[in-house]
């Protein structure tokens, strides 16, 4: 067995063990921390599958931003755990559930093992038309050019999720800011860390977005890194979450889907098809759309993590 194969087996075992920890850990907080570790390990698995774009997304969003969201929730739910622990379902129910789950997993495993060595693929088609998009990264081409309608709808889902989260605010807080007021001065260590990290992180985020046209990276990954920098600044209390009725915030939230849709509709008039880009200008148009998507993602993710407004709006 080569070194790489041994590493693969080791990685698979560790991923499975950490995943089992997130299900069976005694406390919700410990389980959540396990989930963050799990996400980072999973991005290594994605690298072994030669899907670097997915690995970046998994590390940034699947592990990083989701981790902040879940750890924050687990910390606020600690009070619920102090009460006598809830008993789950009875032993027989657990046994039936376990049998069902083993069956599902075994069926999926059988499908995985029965897959042909060379499956059906769209890679040749994706590569064939790649020069027409002016891009070098086929994954970005699929996201922004070939299947752009999917990506627009996904942006709409993000906006709807923000609307859903804000709708959970009590009536008197509608339009206010999420989180507590910035009362005490920032904690020195965290503030120093944020001041050092944020400028570098913003540069990295913009770089990941920019190289995404030709190399692994792109709007999602870059936007998620920028979002993380804003969240770090808010955690360090160097800045506050904006009021949810601020017009600039709301414009930034919808800028991505609106610009994307507008470009798609403009394609009908200019290039003769919904979401067709004018010949010769594909790459500038795609980068223009992506820039607004980065802005929207960088604003949407922190707003989803911050949760519903918890302060009365200033008049």
């Amino acid at each position, binding site marked *: 067995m080569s070194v790489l194969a041994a590493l693969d087996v080791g990685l698979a075992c560790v991923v499975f063990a950490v995943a089992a920890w997130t299900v069976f850990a005694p406390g*919700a907080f410990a389980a959540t921390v396990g989930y963050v570790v799990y996400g980072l390990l999973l991005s290594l698995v994605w690298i072994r599958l030669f899907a670097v774009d997915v690995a970046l997304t998994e590390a940034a969003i699947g592990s990083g931003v989701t981790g902040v969201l879940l750890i924050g929730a687990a910390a606020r739910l600690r009070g619920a755990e102090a009460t006598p622990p809830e008993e*789950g379902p009875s032993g027989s129910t657990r046994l039936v559930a376990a049998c069902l789950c083993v069956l599902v997993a075994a069926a999926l495993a059988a499908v995985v093992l029965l897959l042909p060595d060379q499956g059906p*693929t769209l890679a040749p088609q*994706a590569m064939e038309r790649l020069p027409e998009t002016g891009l070098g990264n086929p994954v970005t081409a699929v996201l922004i050019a070939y299947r752009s309608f999917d990506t627009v709808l996904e942006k709409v889902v993000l906006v709807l999720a923000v609307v859903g989260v804000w709708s959970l605010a009590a009536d*008197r807080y509608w339009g206010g800011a999420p989180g507590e007021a910035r009362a005490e001065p920032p904690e020195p260590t965290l503030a120093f860390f944020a001041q050092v990290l944020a400028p570098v992180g913003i540069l990295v985020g913009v770089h990941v977005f920019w190289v995404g046209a030709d190399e692994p990276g792109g709007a999602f990954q870059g936007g998620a890194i920028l979002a993380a920098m804003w969240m770090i600044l808010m955690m360090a209390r160097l800045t506050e979450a904006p009021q949810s009725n601020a017009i600039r915030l709301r414009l930034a939230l919808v800028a991505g889907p609106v610009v994307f849709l507008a470009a798609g509709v403009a394609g009908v008039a200019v290039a003769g098809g919904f979401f067709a880009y004018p010949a010769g200008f594909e790459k500038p148009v795609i980068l223009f759309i992506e820039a607004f998507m980065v802005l929207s993602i960088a604003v949407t993710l922190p707003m989803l993590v911050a949760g519903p407004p918890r302060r009365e709006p200033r008049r």
Partner: protein
Amino acid sequence: MTSATLAGLVGAALVGLGLYGVIVDPQPLRKILAFNLIGSGVFLVFGIVARKGAAAGLQSDPVPQAMVITGIVVAFAASALAVALTLRLFEQTGRATVRPDVEAKAPGAGADSE
């Protein structure tokens, strides 16, 4: 066994683990965690389909990859909404459980109910 097949098997096992957590654990937050496990397991199975579609000089079919990237972002949005609902339930009732037989606190006793 190739590393792609191994990753696919891990994906299958993760779906099983997550399904067990969703069924058995009464806490909503743990259910959200388990549901995310199912999601990432499905994404890994997608990953092996992408890897088996390696062609045209690419190591992996870009179309399933793009769908997984979209999926990860949508899964995050759904988790954020689910977490917000859980926290609201906790604020309103003082409990975070989906068991129907657990008594809620009297109405108005929540931290900031209307």
